[in-house]
């Protein structure tokens, strides 16, 4: 009896990616069922699936005290491959097929403006909160601010400015919180803020920036708008890596 259970377990573990297909398919099936029956389609099925994913990630993190959520449980390690940056980026690229190139040219300017405004906005918010919580050195404040931009910009900036590893850890956490908040809040906020056109999707991508967050948030709101939001958002981290350790840091240094 024990050996049968073990054989089944081994089968799942050694075919991780296939296990992930089955698991995600199951989550999606129940999420769409809940969306139809319990919320009458008001809350998108993918939004429920993403929130379920985040809850499972929490459970996985508590069980294993690892850093990759559910993927740290050996049985579900394939989730880490399916949801890793390689698959994320590949599928995001594929969403560009079917987008309207003229629309992109016409509304691209608003997207670019929101990008130039979005990075400093998140940086200033993060920096202001760091100051409020008693950080005094310009390096620390800039690192927390950069982390609030995205969890990639934080460590890049921290390393460039020579911040301590504890500060870098906070900056990464701030970016992760933002990314998860964008995933979870977008389906609700999109109704009030009206993110329902390619143009507003591009602005959303430029202001939020976090690729994972905007991709998931948009997927749970209006999948046809994913390419517009994602295309702008992918330039956000790059821009952040350029301006945070330089212009924005120097500006802080003048103040502190």
């Amino acid at each position: 009896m024990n050996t049968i259970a073990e054989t089944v377990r081994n089968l799942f573990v050694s075919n991780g990616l296939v296990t992930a297909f089955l698991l995600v398919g199951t989550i999606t099936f129940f999420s769409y069922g809940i969306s139809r029956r319990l919320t009458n389609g008001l809350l998108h099925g993918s939004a429920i699936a993403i929130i379920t994913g985040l809850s499972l990630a929490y459970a996985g993190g508590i069980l294993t005290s690892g850093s990759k959520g559910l993927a740290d449980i050996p049985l579900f390690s394939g989730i880490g491959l399916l949801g890793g940056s390689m698959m994320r980026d590949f599928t995001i690229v594929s969403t560009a097929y079917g987008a309207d190139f003229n629309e992109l040219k016409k509304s691209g300017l608003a997207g670019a403006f929101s990008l130039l405004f979005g990075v400093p906005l998140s940086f200033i918010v993060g920096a202001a909160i760091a100051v409020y919580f008693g950080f005094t050195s310009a390096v620390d404040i800039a690192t927390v601010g950069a982390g609030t931009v995205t969890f990639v910009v934080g460590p890049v900036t921290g390393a460039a400015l020579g911040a301590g590893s504890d500060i870098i850890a906070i900056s990464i956490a701030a970016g992760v919180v933002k990314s998860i908040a964008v995933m979870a809040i977008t389906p609700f906020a999109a109704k009030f803020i009206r993110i329902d056109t390619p143009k507003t999707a591009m602005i959303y991508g430029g202001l939020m920036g976090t690729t994972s967050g905007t991709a998931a948030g948009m997927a749970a709101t209006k999948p046809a708008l994913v390419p517009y939001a994602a295309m702008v958002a992918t330039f956000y981290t790059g821009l952040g890596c350029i301006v945070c350790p330089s212009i924005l840091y120097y500006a802080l240094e003048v103040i502190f």
Partner: protein
Amino acid sequence: MIYGVALVALCFFLGNFVGAFLGHMIGLNSNIGGVGFAMIFLLLATTYGMPFMERNPPVADGIRFWQEMFIPVVVAMSASQNVVRALSSGHVAIIAGLVATVASFFFIPLFARIGGKGILDEKFAEGGEGR
């Protein structure tokens, strides 16, 4: 069908190459918008290659399959986030992340006024899926 998948892969690498090259030029060791450039390449390839794609539907199917797989990938991605760390990281990180998110949302309507209406605005506002 594999042609469509390979085309996405080709654009993926071309875009990331441009992104890495840009990052190198500026002196950063990171990739600047590689995925964005890849999307622009795919968009150009499919816009100008539309007659070819219409004659060979499987090519488009190869792209569409991965397009459909995007949401499952996002679900898997959300299941592999470090949620515990985000929730236990102390007040600074949580408040900074949340306030930045909410503040950014509030600026969307403001930027929506730049440069007039988009071409597809009406189509999407009517509740169509646009695709």
